């Protein structure tokens, strides 16, 4: 296990450092870090503490939780195509977040934003699970996901188009693709409690998911309460995806790509895959967020664009592989 976890941990640490050091202000390494740690109250401290640090922390939190949620859903449904973004959970969370912002709820009650996003995610994930059925066959799962994503996306666009704010309609792309540009510590604190709860729930599912690899009957015989497992999975996923989407928009494919790459390295055991995927997800979002700053710094390129460029071909590859296995 440590054979995988240590290199992954080192990779995440290196990317975290890079995320803190790369930006348009272009300041030296030592100077940047001393401004971050010592804090002389000058402009560089402001840049490091209020702009780059929250961005880095959010990338770790959101990437980690998306990887974790993807691994957990795939373990439960025993289907490598299950991913919060693809099956409409992120889209539903975005709808909840947009409703909270546009109705003014987020303005009067600060936790309104993550709570509404959580409610949206909960609605989305419940709907998909009901539509796909307990066994979650690939086809029904993806079809249910498409229906839920399309509906959530359309309603999000509708709400933004109806907004009295002339900028709102242009932000459909942010909610669909996600971005970490110019986020602040406020966003970190908003998302943190919900993510902590979600991560605690999802990481506790390892034993149950391991048992499930033997089949549902065997798992129940081993004392796993499937109904409870399902509820925990739904709620935990909604917590992490809802909180992440509320502050950074819907970032897709992380939960698909990361578990797929790491699965063979952890011996395909779901419990091990959970933690490995959390680290891998953090690394992927950190890398994507560094790339958007380096490749097209002036264009506010969306994170979801990069993750989809990596994720969509892999998705197609997985579909082809599944089809071959069926035949």
């Amino acid at each position, binding site marked *: 296990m440590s054979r995988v976890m240590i290199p992954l941990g080192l990779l995440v640490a290196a990317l975290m450092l890079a995320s803190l050091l790369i930006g348009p202000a272009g300041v030296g390494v030592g100077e940047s870090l001393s401004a971050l740690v010592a804090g002389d109250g000058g402009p560089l401290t402001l840049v490091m503490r209020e702009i780059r640090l929250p961005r880095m922390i959010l990338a770790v939190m959101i990437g980690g939780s998306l990887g974790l949620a993807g691994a957990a859903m795939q373990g439960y449904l025993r289907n490598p195509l299950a991913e919060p973004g693809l099956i409409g959970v992120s889209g539903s969370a975005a709808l909840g977040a947009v409703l909270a912002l546009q109705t003014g709820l987020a303005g009067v009650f600060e936790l309104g934003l993550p709570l509404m996003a959580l409610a949206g995610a909960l609605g989305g994930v419940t709907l998909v699970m009901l539509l796909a059925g307990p066994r979650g066959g690939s086809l029904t799962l993806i079809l249910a996901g498409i229906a839920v994503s399309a509906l959530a996306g359309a309603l999000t666009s509708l709400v933004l188009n109806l907004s009295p*704010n002339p900028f709102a309609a242009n932000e459909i792309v942010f909610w669909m693709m996600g971005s970490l540009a*110019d986020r602040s510590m406020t966003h970190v604190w908003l998302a943190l409690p919900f993510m902590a709860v979600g991560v605690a729930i999802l990481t506790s599912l390892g034993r149950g998911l391991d048992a499930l690899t033997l089949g549902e009957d065997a798992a129940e015989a081993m004392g796993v309460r499937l109904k409870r497992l399902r509820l925990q999975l739904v709620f935990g996923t909604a917590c992490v995806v809802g909180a992440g989407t509320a502050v950074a928009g819907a970032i897709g494919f992380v939960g698909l790509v990361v578990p797929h790459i790491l699965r063979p390295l952890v011996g395909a055991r779901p419990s091990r895959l959970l933690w490995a995927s959390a680290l891998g997800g953090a690394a992927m979002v950190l890398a994507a967020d560094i790339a958007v700053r380096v490749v097209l710094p002036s264009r506010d390129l969306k994170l979801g664009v990069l993750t989809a460029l990596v994720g969509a071909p892999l998705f197609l590859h997985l579909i082809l592989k599944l089809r071959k296995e069926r035949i």
Partner: protein
Amino acid sequence: MRRSEVICAGWITRLGALALAVLTAGRAVAQQEAPARVVSMNLCTDQLAMMLAGEGQLHSVSYIARDRRASAMAEEAEAYVTNHGLAEEIYLMQPDLVIAGEFSTQATTAMLKRLGIPVVVFPAASSLDDVRERITRMGAVLHRKDAAQDLVASYDRRLAALRAEVTERPSAVLYYANGYTSGENTLAGQILTAAGFGNAAVEAGYGSGMKLPLEVLAMTDPDAVITARPYPGASRSEEVMDHPAVRAFREARVGATMTDHDWVCGTPYVLRAIEGLGAARREITGSVE
């Protein structure tokens, strides 16, 4: 924030207008006499026309002229009929002159011209000198040259006085939704300079219509950050103006300075914007009038 003031006219409008065109073909209006029934369909021409038009000469202004957020003359606009920049509605007002802005829908102005109504198009002002030119031009169009001359004279006088009082130039950055900034070749940039500020974004190499990264804004360490007043409803684009890094400048330095309806159009109201900023500058430099 400039808004396109015209909603797309549907095909029904066009058919109706065409039918009317057939009925009234050949009704061309000579512009030798002063126009007696003028319709303005752009926020900025609305305000210039309201300032200069004679008694009863101006019939209608755009609906945005009544919007307090964008219009410096929202109260005055209550006295006029409003239009939404649609060819049919404007035609039925039977104007003998239509004044449009550069950004008014081309389809609408072209249609009105085909229907025989003279249309004058005013480009948007992008400098303080443009303001003088627009006033003069509006005076000529409305046959109110004397009123326009007086207005230009008082504009020049006040502007010169405002410029003269500048002794020390603190630095400032204009920072709008989505992190855009303004440079010297914009009205907002010139208002800033005339009020006695140095434009720190321009010094950092970021000109008009460019995105100023939040980090660069923080590193230029300006004495003041001037943001735009947010619209109702929420948007992530405007959220950046309230980022802790921006708020730090707004709160620590000058009381919240924001652009408002005085900044939008090339009218003498820009002087009020310059005066407001001048007060902020004196607060920073600590000089007393």
